[in-house]
């Protein structure tokens, strides 16, 4: 895989991109691009989406910028997809009572992979090579596929990282309504996964900056931030109600940069 390409920091997108994309979308029946609810429509979505991207950008550098973000997301989805498939295949790892949860999460990750792959290819781009998963993260979690608590810890780390990764790219996709909306639609599904895994672990569903295992502390760096849009939300007061001490930090999930995400994810990429 071309990690170097993904790592390259393209944080700015051509300001004219929006206009070009809007023109293209208008020509290709924009309102049908993301109609959901039926299998037939869903199958068509990434195709239309990719076509929209291709029509707008051709082979310009702007296409490359958005495709790199999509390949960055795809890399994370590949790792999650491989991780849950390995876990579901590991005998005795996931208790019968929790299996339905992880089967569903696995299915979602597989479909995120399929959606993003199709979008990239339809846009004329090339998908990154699927990385080989090292579920132990270079030996940091040697029993991840035999000890349920270790598995849950790593699952929580991957899900919460995924939420922060998509959030960190939203503003970089603002010029393209279709890609942005799809990214947000995946983002909230990852948050649901994270909440459920945390609950199974006996943790609160919210991402906190405290009470996290030391091995996954990097996943929660900066989560305690209470300054939002220039407002100190830790100092907000409401008469008659005492807000919880961690509520201001927990009420907002924080983004991670691509570099931060890749520092967390790279150990899970095997040789």
């Amino acid at each position, binding site marked *: 895989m071309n990690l170097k390409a993904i790592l390259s920091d393209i944080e700015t997108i051509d300001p004219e991109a929006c206009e070009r994309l*809007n023109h293209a979308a208008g020509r290709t029946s924009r309102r049908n691009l993301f109609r*959901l609810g039926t299998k037939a429509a869903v199958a068509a979505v990434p195709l239309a989406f990719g076509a929209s991207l291709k029509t707008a950008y051709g082979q310009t550098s702007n296409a490359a910028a958005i495709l790199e973000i999509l390949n960055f997301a795809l890399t994370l989805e590949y790792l999650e997809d491989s991780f849950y498939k390995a876990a579901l295949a590991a005998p005795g790892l996931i208790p019968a009572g929790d299996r339905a949860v992880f089967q569903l999460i696995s*299915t979602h990750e597989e479909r995120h992979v399929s959606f993003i792959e199709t979008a990239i290819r339809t846009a004329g781009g090339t998908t990154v090579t699927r990385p080989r998963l090292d579920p132990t993260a270079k030996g940091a979690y040697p029993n991840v596929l035999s000890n349920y608590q270790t598995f849950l810890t790593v699952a929580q780390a991957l899900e919460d990282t995924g939420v922060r990764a*998509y959030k960190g790219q*939203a*503003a970089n996709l*603002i010029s393209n309504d279709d890609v942005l909306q799809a990214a947000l639609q995946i983002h909230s599904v990852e948050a649901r996964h994270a909440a459920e895994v945390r*609950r199974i672990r006996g943790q609160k*569903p919210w991402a906190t900056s405290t009470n996290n295992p030391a091995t996954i502390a990097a996943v929660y760096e900066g989560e305690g931030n209470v300054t939002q849009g220039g407002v100190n939300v830790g100092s907000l007061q409401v008469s008659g*109600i005492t807000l919880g001490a961690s509520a201001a930090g927990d009420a907002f999930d924080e983004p991670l940069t691509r570099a931060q995400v890749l520092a967390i994810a790279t150990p899970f990429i095997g040789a």
Partner: protein
Amino acid sequence: MLKVMIDSVACNGKVGRRWFMQVVGVTSAATGLTACDTLLDDENPYVGGVQLGRDDVGVLNYAYALEQLEAAFYTQMLTTPYAGITPEETQLLTDIRDHEIIHREFLRTALAGDAIESLELNFGSLNFGDRAAILAAARQFENTGVAAYNGAGKLLKNPDFLTLAGKIVSVEARHAALIADLLQPRTTYFASDEVVAFNGLEIVQTPAQVLSAVRPYTGTVVNGDLLPTT
């Protein structure tokens, strides 16, 4: 601004004072609010309601309206807790209430003079004493909130506002998953087919769909007709 007032009155003599003030407030931050036929057409009978406004301010007011609704709902839930509520459930629901209050107060503070008024809310149709019924209502509110934010992201023009909306929506999604897990623990209910489509993407709702869905609970009619569509 004076022209807007005159146009508004000229369009419809029944324009309420509250709506009138909202239009004026919004106009101070938005532009071009002079076409009264856009405001008062046949499809918009709610001339007495709250106008969310245009552009990013309108979208943020839309979020502010939803957060007002959620904060009030959970405040009521904890004031009149359902029968058999456990200490853990009380703690988790208190956390959610606090998050929603913080979202509400944050948006009100950020919008400052452009913020809509406090909505009149009415949860009289809900049975707060019944665990299954009220958690089902909570789940609907949360699912609607996530779908609303997912649909609103592309309406924003300022990337900083987009990131802030992203910071809130994933917390709402966590709430939604938790409430579903309280109803049906350790099942697929936390991210069911109702909210996650076959392709693994969560559903999206437009402001019109969302405002219609919450209409039974908003004593004040919330009008999103001026919101952007892209």
